[in-house]
């Protein structure tokens, strides 16, 4: 019975170590504070238990003590806050040049697609020692991508992209859970992350049945939908030239400026008139309901590939998952 009785989760990513270190610090603080409080209560309760002829001594309170036990915990809390914020900042900021994997969640399945074009369901193969960035959306309700061994979790929302990243440190097979309640088979929406040695990963990649990279597929969809008619690669198009725009600030018609990240591209395809680029007219047709989530991610991957770098490595600077 006790073979199967873990008390500590496997740590298989660089981020997991950071989380564990903070967690252990917090366990020590919590243990110290609770032992201190419980010991005081126990000592007082025994030392001052009711005895004949002994009366309680009335004490009004003490301003000095009140200030002490407000300020000292506050100081400790601020240390925890700062440490927690640093760990969170690392968790939420994908490094540049990460391998990108697009994730589409639906009731009750994870669909994953690698930049190279390999598709997987409920399984994600990644190489050890490489940064992997997940760009995720949902076809229906809110889900949450959770890999305990990496200590990462990110809700996956319909209608926008959220991102997460990790760098696996240990080959093996780890749980992938949906952590946001999503209906009947919520607990069946599980899978696994398989971390491979680089050589094995290359073998796995070339063994897959990919029909072209995501960017190539995206280019095909781009042509099929007739996008190149307006979005020409010169200055003559009725729509903006998409070359090199990804990750750059874009001046809008109403004077605002936005960064052309995954969410902006997505929004500009689905409801183009929301944020029109300065100097252009809102003439693009609405594609809401006309393209699937998979087609959208391929289009996003294609437009990213048009920017500098082999795979559109220029990522959003800080807040890819902020509200559009």
């Amino acid at each position, binding site marked *: 019975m006790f073979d199967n009785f873990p008390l500590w989760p496997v740590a298989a990513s660089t981020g997991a170590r950071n*989380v564990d270190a903070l967690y252990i610090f917090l366990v020590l603080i919590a243990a110290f504070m609770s032992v201190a409080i419980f010991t005081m209560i126990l000592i007082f309760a025994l030392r001052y238990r009711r005895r004949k002829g002994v009366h309680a001594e009335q004490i009004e309170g003490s301003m000095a003590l009140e200030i002490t036990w407000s300020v000292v*915990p506050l100081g400790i809390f601020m240390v*925890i806050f700062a440490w927690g914020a640093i760990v969170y900042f690392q968790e939420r900021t994908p490094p540049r040049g990460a391998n990108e994997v697009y994730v589409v969640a639906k009731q009750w399945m994870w669909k994953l697609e690698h930049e190279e074009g390999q598709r997987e369901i409920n399984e994600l193969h990644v190489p050890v020692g490489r940064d992997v960035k997940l760009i995720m959306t949902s076809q229906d309700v809110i889900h949450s991508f959770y890999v305990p061994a990496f200590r990462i979790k990110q809700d996956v929302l319909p209608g926008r992209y959220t991102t997460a990243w990790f760098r696996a440190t240990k080959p093996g097979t780890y749980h992938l859970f949906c952590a946001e309640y999503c209906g009947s088979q919520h607990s069946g929406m599980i899978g696994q992350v398989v971390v491979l040695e680089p050589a094995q990963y290359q073998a796995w990649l070339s063994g897959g049945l990919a029909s072209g990279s995501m960017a190539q597929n995206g280019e095909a969809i781009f042509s099929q939908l007739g996008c190149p008619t307006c979005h020409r690669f010169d200055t003559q198009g009725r729509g903006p030239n998409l070359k090199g725009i990804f990750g750059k600030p874009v001046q809008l018609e109403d004077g605002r400026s936005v960064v052309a990240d995954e969410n902006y591209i997505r929004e500009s395809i689905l409801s183009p008139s929301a944020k029109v680029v300065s100097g252009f007219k809102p003439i693009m047709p609405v594609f809401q309901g006309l393209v699937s989530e998979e087609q959208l991610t391929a289009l996003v991957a294609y437009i990213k590939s048009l920017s500098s770098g082999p795979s559109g490595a220029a990522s959003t600077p800080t807040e890819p998952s902020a509200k559009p």
Partner: protein
Amino acid sequence: MATAAVTAERENYLNKEYGIRSWLLTTDHKRIALLYLASITFFFFIGGFFALLIRLELLTPAGDLVQADTYNKLFSMHGQVMIFFFLIPSIPAVLGNFLVPLMIGAKDLAFPRINLLSWYLYITAGLVYLHCIVMGGVDTGWTFYTPFSTAFSNTKVIEAGIAIFIAGFSSILTGLNFVVTIHRMRAPGMTWSRLPLFIWAHYATSIIQLLGTPVLAITLLLVVFERAFHLGIFDPTRGGDPLLFQHLFWFYSHPAVYIMILPSMGVVTEIIPCFARKRVFGYSAVALSSIAIAVFGFLVWAHHMFVAGISLYSAMIFSILSYMVAIPSAIKVFNWTATLYKGSISFSTPMLYAFGFIGLFTMGGLTGLFLAALGIDVHVTDTYFVVAHFHYIMVGGAVMGYLGGMHFWWPKISGRMYPEGWGRLAALIVFLGFNLTFFPQFVLGYLGMPRRYWQYPPEFQVLNVLSTAGSTILAVGYVLPMVYFLWSMRYGKIAPDNPWNAAGLEWKTTSPPPTFNFEEEPVVTWEAYNYDQLPEPQEVSLER
């Protein structure tokens, strides 16, 4: 026995009138408190029944006891029943209703008829919700997250939403009544600085009920409308935003935690001085910390959303504010501990519950520090760590306080003593059963077991078995008091007016009190908790 017989025949709020009409049309706050007591106890056992089924299902990794859909309904309805139909009304509507006028020396609440109306609203809501359960129930979790609740669930979401919408008004009316009563109805001499801290806690609670509950009501109404008429407020394909729902929902539902825990803190602040025979250490610190909790409680809601897709910077703001709200809670724990210093402490049942409250609330509070730490929250949110944490606060904290208060004031409410030996035994069983149920869940959560899972990987089984074992012990601990309270109403010893020699105006009238509480209006010339002027009581004997 002769004096007992005389006491029993004295006119009081219980024997003044008989018959069903005298209860259903009463405007006496004490009788309404008992109406609430019966109704919330009923819902507590329904919610508890759901909880036991949940724990039995989780005894094995496979989903084998009930279907997945049934399981989803069980945890959804367990949460909704326990929160909206038990915890939120529990202490305010029962003990608060009974005690607020007595403690401040008033004849009744400011609006006795509105008080009765609030109970009828509660009952209406309860009937709608029972109908919802019978017609198949609801499976949205207690949180109603969109777009699942608005567009995907095919259960009775609208009915559940309407039931909770109505229950909200009962809560608002109770809060309104308390605020006005505490401002306007205090007896001569009962200044703000002489108020029992139970009253301060209820004042803070009432403010949250008044300001927070309308937001929940509006939010649920939007869910109902969106589901019925496809408005698109939370639907991203129509330009809506599912996160807007989460912001609105938690704007109420985080402060709602303080609606549940503040009154319990108030109860504990009455019990500890009485059984330590001391004035409360740091009266004003404890009073003001209640107000601070009510205010700061409104500023931390998005700490439920650190992985939901809010921006990095708003997450940091809500994290730091969450640490701020921990300070006033810590202040209370330290002051309770300091109150014990140089006291004369007895270990009667209410005091055992108060000790249990401090222990479990401290654990709940300290694990809250983990969840407020952004980097940790990413890993443990939506896992059993969160489940354990909020049960430590809301069951370990709020329910321990509620049971402690029920024992402390039972002689006043019923005019009878409960059996002390059984009381202490039950307190011990509750404490042990609670820890066995919920402590393993912290470990499960850090291991990564997500909440709301009908089936789970086999390596989580041992901890789940421990938890289920604990829950059966806990169930025994909760049934026991109900049995002996009922028993004591007929067979318990007649209670004296002030069995604990406690300070507080409620103990200066008879047990049970007359309909208008006091023979003549009391005039207060002393501070609260003047235990130096009260003799120590005889130790309550363990035999019945």
